[in-house]
Every structure is written in structure tokens, then in C-alpha cells.
């Protein structure tokens, strides 16, 4: 690794650290209903929304009605998105005259965007009209992100309230997350991207003659506006098929850095929001630190493997060392504009967070780095993770860590003064089981069914990895893919669609149930006899729990996929 790599990583982590506190503090004010500097501008708008939708912002919900609101709202969004795709041919803003999207693909896409996954079994510029992109996909990009934030905030309330029945009002949380957090940042950063060269228009595609005399169609559209929310909301669905590798989506190294920061910004900020709302910011920093440790560990492995280059080329005597003249390493599938470090960093960031935007082809990563990106998703998308979902996922692991090891201080387990009892453990295990079941069962099905195997491009362990990646991505609501898998088939559209729904809602409901159950409990006074949950030791325990639960569930599959492939690659066999 060279100095430039180190500078890039330190700069990225440093900027993230600097962003966490102001953003987290701001969000804490927003979700506690306090005034913020944007209130003069936005509160009239907020009140108008409540009036129009007949929402009483003062009425709080118990967890079952909060969960029902989440599910109904997302179901409605999914149906709307499905209808929009099927009917886009009859609707305006369709200069390319795209016809209706096939039913299975429309289902998959509707599930994908309403679950904050943005798995794209289609290529945007050749399938979706401007109206579908803006009124359908972009709208879902906002509200699915806001849903995630709302659920996380509800869980925080469960932990911070004492002997309370309600965990907040979903509609208020949804509106405030959208109005006060997602929209303002999207507007401002979109302008920055436009300044850097990202287009924002509704023009038809441009046909040009290339220097070589060939004909090229250059897609256009409202890219900048969708770009920011794609990252800020950890959605990941690109305007173009090439996603953030496309020069219109990600034109410069500066936009690359901004985009990576956008992915982690809200998930990192929410850890501080959590700390503030439970009245002990150290608790938030401990969660932040656990996420950062997992992130840096994954990054280190990936960077070493990718910078180390391809062993087959090394055997041929090819110089793969980084030098002033070349980036070295494994450049296959990477943008030369970004080089090894910025590509690897992006790949790890986008899989650690459940974003799924890519600036490099993950299928072309060396097997072990591909394995790290998969493992990031399989850990439950808790390494900063999706907006909201990263925090609530990590807090579920904190509850499990406290439960398993917390007994060793000689008290029945408690987290932040809340006793962790049967109901919480039942729900936490449901959370873990839903993820593991979805990934393992669908992968198993696809890897033995002829209609599953027929979609893979490469045989052997790499083909297995393509399937395994697809369901890990779907279940983790990530949305990135090993491109070798032809996913636009009836089987994959339906099963990946189901994996996304399971990974989203079968985990959200237990989280809200835990929030409701914890809110009802008294908060015990902390003392010397209480297990501290803000120390480096606890951070280590939390990291250990995440890794062990993940590793135990997925080690056999990882051994048969990326690990076997890496070992075979070393032995000179490729797939």
C-alpha cells in the first residue's frame, strides 16, 4: 500500500468522523420535535402536510400500530410503483417511448425500491421513462430511506423512554425525516454535483458521431437530483446501468469522495443521534467505533488483495506493483479514473452500508475481496449499514452481545438500563433468522434448480458466488450485484424480490416489537455493578458478536464460494 492510499483512507474516515456529530445532533433535534435552523422555512410546509394528510402530530402510536403504518405505507408505495411501471407507456414524460415493464420485473423493481434495496434487474436508460424514474423510483428513494430512519428512531425511543406505551408517530417521523433531513441535503449536494458536471435535464437522448465515425447515443435526464438521494438514502439504484462508474453520475475524484461520504453520512450520524437521545453520547460513539472497526477490517483485506494483484499475472512475471507510473494491482473491472484505492474504498463502503451504488464491477474483484463485499452484506448490513437499518441492526446485535456475555458480570442482562428478557431475545433471534434463512434457502434453491443455475455466467465456485451474492444483496437490501448473473428471469425476479421483502420487513417488525417492549420497561439506574456499554471492551464484544453470528451462519457457503475460488486461483484454476 502506498502513501496516497493511506491519505485517501485517513481523509475519508476523518471526514466521516467530523460529519457524525453535527449531523447526529441535528437529527436528534429533528426527531425530538425541537426547533432547528431550518424550522422557519420548513415548519409551515410540515404543518401543511399534516393538515392535508389528516395527521395529528401529537398523537403517538404503540408499536403494533407504528408497525402497521410502516407496512401499509410501504405496501401502498409498492403497488403505486408497480402500476406506474406497467402504465408508463400511456403516461407523459416518456420521450424514448418505453413500453410497459414486464410483470415479474415490475414486481421485482417495486419491491426493490420500496425496500431501499434498488436491485436493478434492468438497465435504467433502456427501460424506465423519466416519469417512472422521477415520480416512482426517486420518490421511493426518499420515502424508503425515511422509513428506515423512522424505525431506527422508534427503537431509540424504546431504549430512552421509561415505562412508556408509545414509541412515536410513524407519519410524523416519515415527514420530518424527508423534509428536514433528506430533502435539504439532496438539494444542496445536487447543486454541487451539477457544478462538477452531472447533468440535470429532461432532454431526449443525444445521438452523436464518434471520432472513429461510429454512432453513439448519449443518455440524458435528471441525473443529479436522483444521484444524491441514491447515495444519501443508501438506495444505490443508478440512473444509468453503469451506476457510479458512469461519468455522468460520478464525473470527478471529488464527486467520488462526496458520494462515498453521502453513503455513510446518515448511518454514522444516527449513531450520535442515538447517543444524544438516550442521554449518553458515549453509547453512540461505541456503536460508531464498532462499525468503524468492522469497516476498516474489511477495507484492509480488500485493499491488500486487490493491490496485491492477480496471482496468475504475477506468475507470468507481470509487474503489479503500484508505482508513480501505474496503480498496480488488479485493475480488471475498475475505472482507470479512480484507480485501485478509490474503487476498493467505494466497493467496501457501498456493501458495508446497504447502498449498492457501485463505481467498480464487483464481479471482477479477486475472489477474496468479492467475499468481503458479500460478508459485509451477510453481517446484516450493520457496518454503518442502510439509513436507519444500519443502526437498528447494530442495536439488535448489541442486545444479543449484552445478553450472551452480559451475564458474566453477575446480573441478568440489561442494555442502557433496560432488562433484556425473553421477548426481546425472541424478536432478536427472529431478526437474525429472517436474514439467514432468506440468504441460505434461496441460494440453496437457486444452486440446484436448473432455472437457477442457467443464469450464471461462470461455472464452479464463481458461479456459486454470483448466486450467493445476489441473495445476500437482496436480503441485505443492498442492491449491488455480481454482474455475471443474468437476473432478469422470472425465477430471479420473484425470488430476489421476496428476499428483499423478507430482509426488510421481517426484520423491521421484530425491531419495532423490541422498541415497544423496551419502552414499557423502567430504566434501571446505572452503577458500578452495571455492565458498561461504552468501553473499548464492549466495542470488541459487539464486533465479536456480529462477526461470530455472521461467520457461523455463512462460513460453509463462503468456503464453497469465494474462499474455494481464491485457493483454486492460487493453484492456477479460474472460472
Amino acid at each position, binding site marked *: 500500500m502506498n502513501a496516497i492510499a493511506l491519505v485517501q483512507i485517513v481523509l475519508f474516515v476523518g471526514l466521516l468522523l467530523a460529519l457524525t456529530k453535527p449531523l447526529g445532533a441535528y437529527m436528534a433535534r429533528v426527531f425530538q420535535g425541537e426547533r432547528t435552523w431550518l424550522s422557519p422555512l420548513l415548519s409551515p410546509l410540515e404543518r401543511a402536510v399534516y393538515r392535508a394528510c389528516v395527521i395529528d402530530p401529537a398523537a403517538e402510536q404503540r408499536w403494533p400500530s407504528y408497525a402497521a403504518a410502516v407496512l401499509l405505507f410501504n405496501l401502498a408505495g409498492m403497488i403505486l410503483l408497480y402500476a406506474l411501471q406497467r402504465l408508463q407507456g400511456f403516461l407523459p414524460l416518456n420521450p424514448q417511448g418505453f413500453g410497459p415493464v414486464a410483470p415479474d420485473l415490475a414486481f421485482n423493481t417495486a419491491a426493490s425500491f420500496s425496500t431501499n434495496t434498488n436491485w436493478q434487474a434492468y438497465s435504467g436508460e433502456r427501460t424506465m421513462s423519466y416519469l417512472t424514474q422521477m415520480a416512482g423510483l426517486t420518490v421511493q428513494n426518499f420515502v424508503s430511506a425515511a422509513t428506515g430512519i423512522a424505525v431506527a428512531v422508534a427503537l431509540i425511543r424504546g431504549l430512552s423512554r421509561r415505562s412508556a406505551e408509545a414509541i412515536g408517530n410513524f407519519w410524523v417521523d416519515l415527514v420530518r425525516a424527508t423534509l428536514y433531513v433528506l430533502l435539504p441535503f439532496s438539494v444542496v449536494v445536487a447543486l454541487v454535483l451539477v457544478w462538477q458536471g452531472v447533468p440535470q435535464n429532461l432532454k431526449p437522448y443525444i445521438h452523436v458521431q464518434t471520432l472513429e465515425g461510429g454512432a453513439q447515443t448519449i443518455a440524458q435526464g435528471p441525473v443529479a437530483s436522483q444521484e444524491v438521494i441514491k447515495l444519501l438514502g443508501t438506495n444505490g439504484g443508478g440512473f444509468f446501468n453503469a451506476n457510479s462508474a458512469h461519468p455522468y453520475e460520478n464525473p470527478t475524484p471529488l464527486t467520488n469522495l462526496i458520494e462515498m461520504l453521502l453513503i455513510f453520512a446518515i448511518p454514522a450520524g444516527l449513531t450520535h443521534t442515538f447517543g444524544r437521545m438516550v442521554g449518553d453520547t458515549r453509547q453512540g460513539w461505541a456503536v460508531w467505533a464498532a462499525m468503524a472497526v468492522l469497516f476498516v477490517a474489511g477495507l484492509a483485506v480488500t485493499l491488500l488483495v486487490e493491490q496485491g494483484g492477480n496471482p496468475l499475472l504475477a506468475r507470468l512475471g507481470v509487474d503489479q506493483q503500484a508505482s508513480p507510473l501505474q496503480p498496480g494491482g488488479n485493475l480488471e473491472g475498475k475505472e482507470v479514473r479512480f484507480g485501485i484505492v478509490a474503487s476498493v474504498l467505494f466497493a467496501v463502503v457501498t456493501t458495508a452500508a446497504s447502498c449498492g451504488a457501485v463505481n467498480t464491477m464487483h464481479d471482477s474483484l479477486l475472489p477474496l475481496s468479492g467475499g468481503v463485499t458479500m460478508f459485509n452484506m451477510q453481517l446484516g448490513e450493520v457496518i454503518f449499514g442502510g439509513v436507519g437499518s444500519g443502526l437498528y441492526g447494530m442495536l439488535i446485535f448489541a442486545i444479543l452481545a449484552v445478553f450472551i456475555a452480559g451475564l458474566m458480570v*453477575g446480573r*441478568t442482562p440489561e442494555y442502557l438500563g433496560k432488562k433484556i428478557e425473553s421477548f426481546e431475545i*425472541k424478536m432478536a433471534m427472529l431478526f437474525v433468522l429472517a436474514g439467514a434463512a432468506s440468504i441460505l*434457502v434461496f441460494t440453496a434453491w437457486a444452486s*440446484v434448480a436448473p432455472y437457477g443455475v442457467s443464469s450464471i455466467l461462470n461455472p464452479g465456485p464463481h458461479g456459486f458466488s454470483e448466486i450467493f451474492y445476489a441473495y445476500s444483496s437482496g436480503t441485505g437490501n443492498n442492491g449491488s450485484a455480481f454482474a455475471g448473473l443474468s437476473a432478469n428471469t422470472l425465477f430471479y425476479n420473484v425470488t430476489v424480490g421476496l428476499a428483499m421483502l423478507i430482509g426488510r420487513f421481517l426484520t423491521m417488525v421484530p425491531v419495532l416489537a423490541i422498541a415497544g417492549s423496551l419502552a414499557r420497561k423502567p430504566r434501571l*439506574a446505572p452503577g458500578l455493578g452495571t455492565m458498561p456499554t461504552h468501553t473499548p471492551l464492549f466495542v470488541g464484544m459487539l464486533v*465479536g458478536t456480529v462477526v461470530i453470528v455472521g461467520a*457461523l451462519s455463512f462460513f460453509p457457503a463462503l468456503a464453497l464460494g469465494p474462499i474455494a475460488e481464491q485457493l483454486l486461483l492460487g493453484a492456477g484454476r479460474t472460472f
Partner: protein
Amino acid sequence: MSGHDREQAGVTDRNRRQDSQRAPRTMPARDADPMRGLEPPPVRTPETDEMKELLQRRLRGASPWSGPLLKRALRDAVVKLDPRHLVTNPVMLVVEIGALWTTAVTLAQLVVPELGRGFSLGFGIQISLWLWFTVLFANFAEALAEARGKAQAETLRATRKETPARRLRDGREELVPSSQLRKGDIVLVREGEIIPGDGEVVEGIAYVNEAVITGESAPVLKEPGTDIRSGVTAGTQVVSDWLKIRITADPGESFLDRMIALVEGARRQKTPNEIALTILLVGLTLVFLLVVATVEPFAIYAGNPVATVVLVALLVCLMPTTIGGLLPAIGIAGMDRVARFNVLALSGRAIEAAGDVDVLLLDKTGTITYGNRLAAEIIPVNGASLLDALIAARQSSLADQTPEGRSLLALAEQMGAPATEGIRPDAEIIAFTAQARLSGLRQGGHEYLKGAPEAILARTGEGAPADLNEQIERIAREGGTPLALALDGRVVGVVHFKDTVKPGLRQRFQEFRRMGIKTIMITGDNPLTAATIAREAGVDEFVAGAKPEDKIEIIRELQRQGHLVAMTGDGTNDAPALAQADVALAMNSGTAAAKEAANLVDLDSNPTKLIEVIALGKQLLITRGAITTFSIANDVAKYFAIIPAMFATAYPELGTLDVMRLATPESAILSAVIFNALIIVALVPLALRGVGYRPAPAAELLRRNLLVYGVGGIVAPFIGIKLIDLIIAALGLA
């Protein structure tokens, strides 16, 4: 510790005074014990030698490793293979189903050879055997933990035999079997007879031997009308005089019946934390079922299906069998430890809650102090010499058998009074009476007196000397009781009697502070006295001028602030507070109402034991957590053993993951299974004994235990599996 000490510990000021007024006239043999009151009785902690000896005496022949118990546990381990029993332990039920499956597949191979694809007959037999052993070992652990309690229950049951009872009806005495007694009946029990039912003394004073309940041979005094000496228990024996008793429990509901059920574990219910942990283990088992079930399709994709015997082996290794197998044993052993300490936990939940407690509410009298006042100072006044004061103090106490008197005698001799002269035959003893309020001795022409200052002054007829008044005021200010001394009709000194803090408590409270447990002393004394005792005992806070009824409010307020509160009590007016507290320890000598409201009963009626119960509660939880962590951490090594072996045909390159370099794929899998079974047996002593515990802050405990059981849990199986593999290879088993 002998009987009277125990009794003293529970005595209240009010009763103490009654006792001292009566003492000179009715003096039972035990109260004549010349040592009484001289030295404060030792605090009962498991560390004191006396306690150890007592425990050893009670447990002789009852060590879990003793022959008869071991034999019984081995037999029960086989009986417990019954799936109807294993249903309560889902993890082991799955192992048993797995064992049945591998056995069936292995045996079927003999008939249909194709079924044996992928593994040899010897391998199948060995895996099956070790899976059965896994279940048996877990059953054995549970049976062993239960064995002592069962044996003890049998002893107790033998004492519960029918006894004839003299029922009093309409003034007549009729002989009926004890099983016919009902609540409210009055019975007469004479010297040497067994008390036929639980009840309260309504008339008579007698000594009762309660050894059957408490294991304590010294008899205790029973009399009517006190909160702490009126309750009697069925099966105990009246050893002097007689008692009239009102029966308070119907047959089958007596304390002895409940105790038998408890020690036997017949009605043992899982505690809340045990249930939550079982849910976690079931959840993990489901995850691993998924993992193992999906391995087969993955392996088919890779071109080499895995034999089901190997899949079952993988499943059993990954499942948390160690904690799953030992969980019941840990719980039973935890309750048993508390029972051996002569505290009866009316539910396992109470012991768990004891670990959680962070505030101890302690009565001053009886718990922190002895509750009787011991001589602390002798001060000469009125121009007399110290020697005169000491002589007056010693001689006036020669015939005084009350604790106060004995303590004054001892103090005087310690301070230098000549200890040569005893009571001469011609001596005239001046006994204490409520009217005279003084006592003493007249012999050899001298008169030695001690008593209430006013009474002494009235007797001597002189005016109060200034320094006497000064001392009296000072002593009263400090919460003590002043007594005046007179020699030959002249005031010569003042004695300062004060309530004495039990030794060792200060250090205990310090330990508690380190554990984050706050101690609060409750007393009816004035704030000044309370402050003095509180400072001396080293409690964190005190509430002075409290009435027993105030306790419940104090507890409620603490609970509102998010604390979990423990307390002890014995009186009927303690009952509501006992019911409100999270952990409530009632004295066995206390009223039925108090025992009903509490969740722990101390058979020795020693309130200080609450402290030990808390430590035992913590130890139980730590043991459970340590073995859970160890069990889950073990899985890492097992994966490294089994995964390369399982896919050895499909991808031999995965052998790189076999960091232990195990001999063959079959021996790798077998070693992991054997390690998994043997670790249960290896941890049985730890599960029964409990993880070593010494008071420390949570952070420190976590660091230490995480290192031992977390990191140790990751490392240990790598070594264990490798060793087993070496043995298997050497023996040529696989």
C-alpha cells in the same frame, strides 16, 4: 455458632429488654453460659471456619461425587433419554434425534449397502455412539445436580412421618394423627414430643430442637407473643417443658412439605433468564439447522454431496450443546448452593434477582448491630480512682448473667480490675428488679452496685456530681446508655453501654460498594445515634427515626429511581415491605406472614446472610454466562475442523483452512464430535461448583471472564480437537 447466638442475632431491642428483666430469675442452662456476651459472635460468612465446619457436617456423605449419588445420577442419566423428558431441553432433543438418525442410517447400511455412501461403517458407529454420549453426558450433569437434593428430600420425608398429636378441644385433650390437624386447631406438645404441624405458640415456653430443618443441634427458645420466637415447624422436637400451638397450615402445605418439594426440584420451574437463554439457544439451533440443511444443495452444486451422518455431526458440533446440556444443572446447582447455606429459595427467580440487586436495605438492629448493648467504656467520676470504678464494675457484675453484665465484667477485667475474687458463699446478691433498677453484690463488707444513674443516686443519697452529669449527657448524645457504678454507697464511675456493630461488616460493605451495591441502614433511633452507627458500620446511607411501616415507602421510592432492592424482615409489619422488595429474605423464626411475603427464608434466621445470597445469585448468573460464551466461542474451531474435511473431495484446496492439520477427514469430524461430547463432562464440576467469584466492579468482571471464557473458548477446542485427533490416529480409529 451455637443456638443462642443465632437467636440473639435476630432479637430486637424490645425483646432484648424483656429478656434481661427476666433473666436473673428464670435462668435456663444455656443462658448461664459464662461466655455469653463476652465476645461478639462471629459473623456468618462461608469464609469463617465455623461455617465451613457446619457446612461440612451437613454435607458429609452428600458431596455430588460420593458413591451413592454418582450411581443414582448415572441411572437417572439413562432414564432421562426419554424424549418426553428431553422436550424441556430442545437442544438436547435435537441431538437425540440426530443420534437416532445416524444410528438408523449406520445400521441400515448393513442391509442396504448403498445407504452407506460417503462414510465407513466404523465411522458411522463411532459418530452415533458419541452422539448418544453427548445426550447422556448432559443428562448425567442434570441428574448429578439433582441427586443431592433428592437424597436430602428423602431424609426430610422420613421426618415427616405421621406423629400423634394432642388436640385440645373444649378443654379436653384428644389423641389424633397429625394428618387430621387443620388450620386453627390447638395442640399441646410435651417434652420429648414431635411438633405435629406448622404453627404458632399460644402458650408456654420451651426449647425446641430444629436440627431437622436447620441442621443445627442447639435447641432454640419458643414463647408466645413475639414476632420471632413464636413460629414452630412440623417435625421439630420439644426438648424441654411444653407448648400450646395453634396450627397454621393444613396437611401437605406445611413448611416441611414445601421444603421437600423445593430441594427435590420436583416443581422446579425455569427462571425468566433461563427461559430467555433457552430461546436464544433454540434460535441458534434453528440457524444451524438452516446452515446444515443448505450445505447439502451447495455441496451438490459443487459436485460432491455430503453424507447425512457428516451433516448431523456438523449440526451437533455447531449447536450450543455445551450450554444446552449444562443449563439445567447450573440452575439446580445454584439453588442447591443457596440451600446448603441454609437459605430456602422459594423460587429460582429470587436467586437470579439477588444477583441484580443494587440496593440493600438493612435493619440496624439484629442485622448491622447485635441489638444488645455491650459495655464499651468505664469512666471514673466523683473524684474516684479508675481502679475503684473498675472494681465496682467487675464485682457488681459477678452474678449478672445478662449479656450486658457479662460484657461489663469482661471489659473491667480487660481494663485491669483484679480478677481473683469470685462470689463467696456469704455473698448477698442484689438482683435486678424493675422497681429498683439496679443490681449488684454485697460481700466481704463491701457493696458493689450498678444501675440507672437516678436509681444509684437515690440509693447513695448524695447529689449528682458535676462530672457524672457531664458523662451521662455525652453518652446519651452519642446514642449510648449510661449506667452509674457505686462502691460502698458512693458513686465512683459511669459505664458507657453501646450498640455494637458486628465485626467484618465494614469490610463487606466496602466490597459491596466495589460491586456497585449501595447499603442503606434503617433504624428507629434518633439521627445522631443512627449517624454514629452508620459511620461505624460504613453503610452508604441511613434512614433514622423510621417506623417499620416506612420501609415500604422507602423501597417504592428506590424502585422509582430505577433500583432493585433487597431487604430482610421477620415481623408481621415487615410483610408488605417484604412483598414490595425485589429480593426479600425472611427469618425462619419470623411470623408466617413475613415468610409468606418473602421469596427467601433463612433457616438460621441470620439477616446478615442476605449478603451471601447476593454473591450466590451473581455466581449463578456468571456461571451461566461463562458457559454460554464458551460454548458459542467453541464453534469457531469446530468449523475449521469440519468444513475442510467435509468438502475434501469437492475442493481439496480447502485443506488450507485445516489449520490444525488433522490426520484424515474422518478423524477430523470424529475429533470435533468427541470434543463436543467430552467438554460437557469436563465442565460438569464448573457447572455444579459455579465460576469462582469475588466482588469487583462489573467492568473488571467482564474483562476477566471474557478473557477466560471468551478467548479461552476460542482457543481451547483447537488444542482439544488436535489432541483427540492424535489419539484417534494413534489408535487407528479413523
